[in-house]
């Protein structure tokens, strides 16, 4: 049976080839890991290690303790801070959605040139420094600021309103800073909705409103989810604007962390607050990633 030997040799060389391919792939993977290593090392040392340490610190101080967490869940000051942070984040997300939706809709529906203009007007503030924009709102909203002066001269009010250094000012400035994070994912979802679907809806006798509600709106929901997630999560950890605009009275979670580290040197308390905030953020990311890929949500940023 000469062909049997030949088969065997064939099989052996096939196995060799397969082994060679596997070896090649392994070598290839090692090269790739080597290429990734420098970036990975930077992030592991500066971020992953400190996060692990924060978690450890929150439960260990000369012995295992849940004291830091007990305080978060029982002391009213902590509870109030978390409640306020979630409340403000919810308001800001809702307002940015209401303001962002028509802008994204216009950018998707307008002819290319006008659409580019609308997007440009969204992207310019997007890339302007957060600090600069907070400063601009301080100038606009202060007692003698432009908004109060205009309202006074128009006779709408007879005393300057307290607009800055409180929650209202914080919300206004945060909405302004985070609005582009809502518009861009909304726009990228809306842009993919085929126009003929709208025509089809209209040709079947649907009124514009009906077509919008039954066709366009449902198809844009992935953008709504991506934008709302991004804005909500950025709100939860926002620091600069609430610190400068809040007037020191309304405490957000980020301010609690910073105060505990900078002023009181209470690392255990800061760590526990950080861990709770992180768990909230990761839980939201995880829940949303079940519906739309994480990359899509983060892409806009």
């Amino acid at each position: 049976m000469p062909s049997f030997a030949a088969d065997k040799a064939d099989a052996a060389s096939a196995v060799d080839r397969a082994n060679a391919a596997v070896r090649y792939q392994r070598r290839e993977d090692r090269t790739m890991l080597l290429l990734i290593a420098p970036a990975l090392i930077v992030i592991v040392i500066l971020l992953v290690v400190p996060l692990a340490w924060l978690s450890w610190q929150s439960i260990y101080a000369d012995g295992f303790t849940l004291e830091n967490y007990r305080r978060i869940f029982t002391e009213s000051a902590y509870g109030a801070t978390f409640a306020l942070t979630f409340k403000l984040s919810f308001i800001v997300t809702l307002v940015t959605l209401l303001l962002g939706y028509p802008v994204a809709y216009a950018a998707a529906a307008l002819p290319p040139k006008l659409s580019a203009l609308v997007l440009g007007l969204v992207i310019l503030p997007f890339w302007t420094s957060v600090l600069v924009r907070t400063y601009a709102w301080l100038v606009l909203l202060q007692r003698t600021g432009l908004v109060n002066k205009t309202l006074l001269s128009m006779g709408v009010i007879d005393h300057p309103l307290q607009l800055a250094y409180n929650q209202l000012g914080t919300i206004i400035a945060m909405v302004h800073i985070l609005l582009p994070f809502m518009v861009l994912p909304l726009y990228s979802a809306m842009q993919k909705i085929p126009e003929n679907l709208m025509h089809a809806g209209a040709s079947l006798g649907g009124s514009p409103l009906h077509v919008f509600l039954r066709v366009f709106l449902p198809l844009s929901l992935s953008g709504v989810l991506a934008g709302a997630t991004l804005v909500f999560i950025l709100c939860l950890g926002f620091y600069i604007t609430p610190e400068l605009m809040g007037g020191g009275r309304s405490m957000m979670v980020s301010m609690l962390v910073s105060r505990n580290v900078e002023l009181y040197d209470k690392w255990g308390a800061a760590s526990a607050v950080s861990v709770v905030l992180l768990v909230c953020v990761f839980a939201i990311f995880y829940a949303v990633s079940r519906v739309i890929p994480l990359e899509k949500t983060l892409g806009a940023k």
Partner: protein
Amino acid sequence: MKRSASGKLVLGAVVVLILLFLIVPVLIVVPLSFSDTRFMTFPPPAYSLRWYEAFVGSPTWMAAARTTLTASVSAALIATPLGVAAAYGIQNGTHWSMRYVRLVLMLPLMVPIIIVAVGVFFVYARTGLVNSMTGLVLADTMLGLPYVLISVSADLRTFDQTQEMVARSLGMNRLRSFMTVTLPQIRSSVISAAVFVFIQALDETVVALFVSGGDKQTLTRRMFVALRDEIDPTIAAISTLLTALTLCLIVTIVVTRRPAARA
């Protein structure tokens, strides 16, 4: 028909108002920076360059500007090659761990910045990097890496990898084939990535609040501290300069991207 036309008009007006809300606060600091009074009155009673002179004439503001520019340029120069290498590795790697590696590299975008700042401060306090340029550059590099990864990965995914294979089969080594075949074709996303890292470093405030100080304070850190006390018009001048710089960079990106889009 008439109803839908008036509906469009209302929608148009609403959109214009929202766009004004977006753009006016960004532009309002420009005329204020040229005002000649301390008070933030609008329109300014008279124009002058006194706040720009106050900025340029102040050794502390100038030192801060130098620190920020040095840190931002260095971070862009380091994060870009690191990020491109990582994006290339993830694109071509087949190991099961790649998904998780990618997730770890995206962490700086996901973790709230205040927690990042506290963590970096912890590492630096132990390694003596607080108030150092090295520390600042490393932190900005870490924060910039996800931007490089997002920008370059998107481009690499649509890039036809067989071109590089051809170059290698013709005897080029991997590095040379990447440099001569792949890199020129993903050039625009690499340039945007570097610009993103630079702008991000320029704007970074929270980490700098924790880890920079003394003569190694960044511009935004000094601005933040100054704003806690009073609204000094010098900040309007600095803000205008920062916004102008950012605008120029964005225009650069748009210009470098156009040829790639046409091709």
